[in-house]
């Protein structure tokens, strides 16, 4: 597979260069304005938390990782390149922090003591429907956990976070060609894992 990568530059800016408002937040935060940094956190924390929770399978770990990711972003804000989208940069930091966490002893300790995550939503349907949805959510979680990390990442970014290949390329640095092949393989493994757990 061959893909002309020059178009990938648009994944960084996507015609949606860092807006004037965000640029001001970044510069104010660089000058030590914590309130400006808070605005950045408020604007970006939801997709980053969802990403972390889906990769790690645990909301407590995800909260810890996302808070750590924002702390890393704050102290390295002077290295942020305004030509790229802020969300891409924050996603990259969060993904790397998730990867580090998954390798850490902390993860192993927690995994040994906890049950698998049950992802829950605030507004719940009727009891039977909710039960079925919980059962399905656990099945999906277990199937995802059974995949190797690169496949889990590919499915979470592409099919759960619903990012485009260009966006995933910008976040992970993996060539689009390889990402597409990985997604095909990951979906096949996921199908087998879902059937095995059904």
């Amino acid at each position, binding site marked *: 597979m061959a*893909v002309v990568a020059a178009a990938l530059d648009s994944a960084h800016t996507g015609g949606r260069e860092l807006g004037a408002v965000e640029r001001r937040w970044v510069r104010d935060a660089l000058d030590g304005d*914590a309130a400006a940094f808070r605005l950045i956190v408020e604007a970006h924390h939801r997709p980053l938390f969802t990403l972390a929770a889906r990769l790690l399978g645990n909301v407590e770990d995800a*909260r810890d990782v996302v808070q750590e990711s924002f702390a890393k972003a704050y102290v390295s804000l002077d290295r942020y390149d305004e030509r790229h989208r802020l969300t891409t940069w924050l996603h990259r930091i969060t993904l790397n922090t998730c990867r580090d966490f998954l390798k850490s002893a902390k993860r192993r300790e927690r995994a040994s003591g906890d049950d698998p995550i049950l992802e829950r939503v605030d507004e719940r349907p009727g009891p039977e429907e909710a039960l079925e949805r919980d059962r399905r*959510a656990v099945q999906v979680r277990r199937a995802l956990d059974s995949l190797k990390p690169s496949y889990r990442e590919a499915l979470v970014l592409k099919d759960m976070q619903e990012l485009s290949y260009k966006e995933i390329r910008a976040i992970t640095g993996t060539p689009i060609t390889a990402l597409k092949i990985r997604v095909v393989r990951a979906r096949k493994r996921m199908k087998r894992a879902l059937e095995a757990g059904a």
Partner: protein
Amino acid sequence: MTRSERVRRLVDGELDAVEAAALRAEAARDPALAAEIEAALDVVDALRAAPAPPVPDDLVDGAVLRAVQRAHAAPPRRRALPRLHLHPAAWVGLGAAAALALALWARRPSAPPPEEAAPAPRRVEFALPAEGARTVAVAGDFNEWRTDATVLRDDDGDGVFVGAAELPPGSHAYMFVVDGERWVSDPYATNFRDDGFGHRNAIVRVD
């Protein structure tokens, strides 16, 4: 193009209406293809249906607190410019110097008009799944069909070899070379050209 890649394009919405209808018509006659499409759609549906976990209420406060604490513990990252405390007469002198510099700058010889730049080469990324292969390279008209010029790598060991080359605008023919001797057509390419020796060269177009 491989069947799996066509299925992926369908599932990811990359086929136009005619291509999608053609693939579905083919699937109606080919149970294996139909099953592959259904399996991929099942997985995507299951993943998209998984509910997003609620965001903890204290996430934002905790993130900001941790960031501020981290910044206090770290060395300063940017120093503010020192303020100048000058006598009013010194400010007049500085202003005159600035005006002189501006006048000299305005009288500088004008730069020659820039020459029209040649179209820039573009980075093209290549990938081939080749589990068990020792080496994979791309040979094409852009590297004189050398088998050692553009080598792909499989750094994460998943059997997918990736690499890139800078290609000038135009159409370029290429093939993969596995283990230095086996020539393989790109299974994911959409455009091909017969090379007259029994191989199909894939074509990539750089605009």
